């Protein structure tokens, strides 16, 4: 008997889809597997070992770069989320007003310019400020990261706000709550999952950045990704695999948390 005819079926689509899912994960699996390789060569399997994780842990440059990455990502994510929350409150649940479209476009602007162009622009701009002020600390990197994190933090917060109706806030106002009190006790608790989701997205985005950091950083300000890029260009040891594995694990944990947080909405 012939297979039941399904209107949803398209010849070969399932095969291609299966291939895509497999191919998306095979390189990552290989990368992780070689992180546990005893051998110094990245091509031969010499038995299971944790030596490359130990090597990375004892490498001061790696630890330095990791701490710097975390410092930048947490500062940028917090500032970006606060700014994005305020901006989301200002741009949702309102009748269209003059400048609203401009605000949308402006907030999303960092997403539309290639990173290389933003990197170059900031290199030029910050070089002038460095000469003028003499300051060459992490502030530049934090400012740059904050700017491109804002649209990512803004996205889930705005989505959450748009699904929230104004009834509860109106009720609070009817019961003589001041606007600030209504915000603190009603709006903020309802908005919280969106804010956390935005914060996590911003954190991951900042942590992953290579291009803009590469152009903005001063000497000795390598973050973990720029350090890794340098290592990969110089020739590879399984140490980079070990660092990548830990990095991947961190990203996957954050993304999974984000996924469940944004699903809870319904």
């Amino acid at each position: 008997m012939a297979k039941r005819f399904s209107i949803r079926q398209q010849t070969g689509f399932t095969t291609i889809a299966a291939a895509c899912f497999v191919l998306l994960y095979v390189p990552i699996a290989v990368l992780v597997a070689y992180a546990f390789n005893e051998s110094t060569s990245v091509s031969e399997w010499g038995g299971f070992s944790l030596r490359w994780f130990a090597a990375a842990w004892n490498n001061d440059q790696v630890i330095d770069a990791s701490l710097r990455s975390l410092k930048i990502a947490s500062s940028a994510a917090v500032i970006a989320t606060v700014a994005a929350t305020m901006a989301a409150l200002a741009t949702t649940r309102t009748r269209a007003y003059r400048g609203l479209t401009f605000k949308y476009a402006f907030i999303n602007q960092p997403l539309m310019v290639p990173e290389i162009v933003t990197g170059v622009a900031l290199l030029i701009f910050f070089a002038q400020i460095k000469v003028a002020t003499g300051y060459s600390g992490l502030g530049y990197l934090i400012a740059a990261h904050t700017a491109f994190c804002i649209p990512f933090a803004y996205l889930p917060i705005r989505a959450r706000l748009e699904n929230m109706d104004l009834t509860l806030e109106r009720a609070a106002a009817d019961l003589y709550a001041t606007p600030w009190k209504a915000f603190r006790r009603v709006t903020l608790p309802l908005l919280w999952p969106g804010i956390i989701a935005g914060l996590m997205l911003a954190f991951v985005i900042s942590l992953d950045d290579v291009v803009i950091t590469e152009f903005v950083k001063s000497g000795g300000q390598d973050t973990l990704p720029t350090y890794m890029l340098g290592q990969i260009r110089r020739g590879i040891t399984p140490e980079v695999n070990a660092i990548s594995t830990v990095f991947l694990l961190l990203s996957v944990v954050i993304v999974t948390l984000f996924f469940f947080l944004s699903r809870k909405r319904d």
Partner: protein
Amino acid sequence: MATAAEIEKQTEAREIRNRWFLSAPALIIILLAASGPLLIVLLYSFLTPGPYGDVQWTFSTEGWVSVFLERDIFDDTLSFASAHLTIFWRSLKLALMATAATLIFGFPTAYFIATRPERTRDIWLFLITIPFWTNLLIRTFAVLQVIRNEGIINTALINLGITDQPIQMLYTDFAIMVGMVYVYLPLMVLPLYASMEKLDFRLVEAGYDLYATRWQVLKRIIFPMVRPGVIAGSILVFIPAIGAYVTPSVLGGGKNMMFANLIELQFGQGRNWPLGAALSITVMAIVMVALLVYVRNTSGSEARHG
């Protein structure tokens, strides 16, 4: 005494003012550390290169001229900068090919996800999203390990006796394209899925009732309905691909440069900041054209489908 209408008008004005105050921090940060500096790039593209990098503040169009032309150092004649043109052509070619390839692989994948039962759909979507949010450099590095001469592909080919020499894939244009397809595939699948999720299968059924073949249904019914997703996905892949920096640096190995590497060169060893600035503006212009095409197409199709 103020009338009710006037009071309402005043409250509304205050409301809008408050909304500007609230959005000020985000707007100012983006102005200072993203949008504003772009104007400085434009300015720099019209200045004279300084001897040790940076610029001298004298007007010059030399930066723009040398985007396409090169001046002979002996007799000052101009000729086409063939090295630049090769790189432009490679960037454009690879970005378009990567977009096409992600569409060919991404379309069936998005369709597959969209036709799963609702409960399992989220899990498939999650599997596509995870690589999207993991570090691009790490994913590129993963591709490098698979395709290099000692990688699993070449090892497998040699062990199977298909070839006795490893096939050189790394540090070629092919490697860059494979890398871009790999890292940007989720950017294609996600918008495609978003438009397929809403697909009305009653229309597909009607097609089959009228004796359409599967290919005809795909071409004449499904594809036109998900066209906005196709365009959105293509733009989302094309834009980062044309400005790609990490993928060509890691997989192209220095000699197979793309736009971004050429720009970096001008700010590093090249010490020609105006040329670098002019090149940056050129990339931006290409991206703007792509975005314009996108806006045109989506607003048009929305009007048609009501």
